């Protein structure tokens, strides 16, 4: 029973406003002063940093991108993943056949080659070519 009580406390805590930015009702979520612009960041993923230098021989790591903020959904500029979900639910209720279909933009990735040891100390050189990511929104 104590578990139940703690769970109840957690639930209460999550619905209480934690900082000013969340005190407004969800309907304000899209007001312009809420949006953090979508930005692409660059990061070098080092296999050494990941603690994998004992089995990955090459490369040292790779340059990667990731996104942060209110990134637009492939449908069009003003609709992002969150807005799209809200609209989809609403239209679905009133006129199901008009539900907009989300599209995921396939993105071709650069070919990479990785050289690594397997569990039996054999060495594997693998080429990863024709990698396509089917992702919606920011990937």
């Amino acid at each position: 029973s104590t578990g139940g009580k703690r769970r109840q406390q957690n639930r209460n805590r999550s619905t209480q406003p934690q900082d000013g930015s969340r005190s407004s009702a969800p309907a304000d979520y899209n007001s312009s002063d809420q949006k953090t612009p979508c930005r692409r960041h660059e990061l070098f993923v080092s296999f050494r940093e990941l603690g994998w230098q004992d089995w990955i021989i090459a490369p040292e790591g790779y340059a990667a991108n990731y996104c942060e903020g209110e990134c637009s959904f492939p449908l069009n500029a003003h609709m992002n993943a969150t807005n799209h979900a809200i609209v989809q639910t609403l239209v679905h209720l009133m006129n199901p056949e008009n539900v907009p279909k989300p599209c995921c933009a396939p993105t071709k990735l650069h070919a990479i080659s990785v050289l690594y040891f397997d569990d039996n100390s054999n060495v594997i050189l693998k080429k990863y070519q024709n990698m396509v990511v089917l992702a919606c929104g920011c990937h």
Partner: protein
Amino acid sequence: LDGNNEVHLGFIHRRLRTHEKREMQKEILSILGLPHRPKPNLSQGKYNSAPLFMLDLYNTISGEEKIPVEVKLSRYHSTTQSLPLATYQETAFLNDADMVMSFVNLVEYDRELSPQRRHHKEFKFNLSLIPDSEAITAAEFRLYKECVSRTIRNETFLLKVYQVVKEHPDREADLFLLDSRRLWAADEGWLEFDITATSNLWVMSPVHNLGLQVSLETSSGLSISSKEAGLVGRSGALEKQPFMVAFFKISNVHIRAPR
């Protein structure tokens, strides 16, 4: 990375947070199609000849997009002078392959039988862990031979490589001759033997994987040990250890489960 594996200065080196590290490891293993991170036993492996040879192949792949074949080959040899030399044929296999794998020789000790029986050296490789979507397009067995100065300058040896077909507890194994080659005592360098058919058999029927045997004779037909003929064995230099390499073509596309 640009063609020379140089990381663009714009990419920041940022310490990853613990949960980021965990998530990233999970994602990368999933992309690489690996169920878990390998834990190789590297007591002797890291600077062994096989990893050095494979690193050579990796360097060739990493730099090959912009370099025409002729220049590539000359550059390749210049870079590999101190490393095992790969032939033009191997570079052709490399171009076609989706995966290349080198296998550690499993025979822990160089079993040289007593003089009453023919000197021979055994080699065994474990090919049972190859993903079944991979098909071998070419496979080679590689041995390094050093110059033997002790013998007569123009002495030649006849080297024979056999596939072990059947073993018998009380007598010589049944063997199938794969290749034979006449070598000069003064020869030095890597010897490559095509074992594509044998490797395919081993992959399709692991019970038939009884390894290889190498035997040597002098020009007068006398059986000699591989060490006397200059072949480098387990006790030799790490970067000259014998190994096997196989080139694979993938037959189906790896689909990653969506997260």
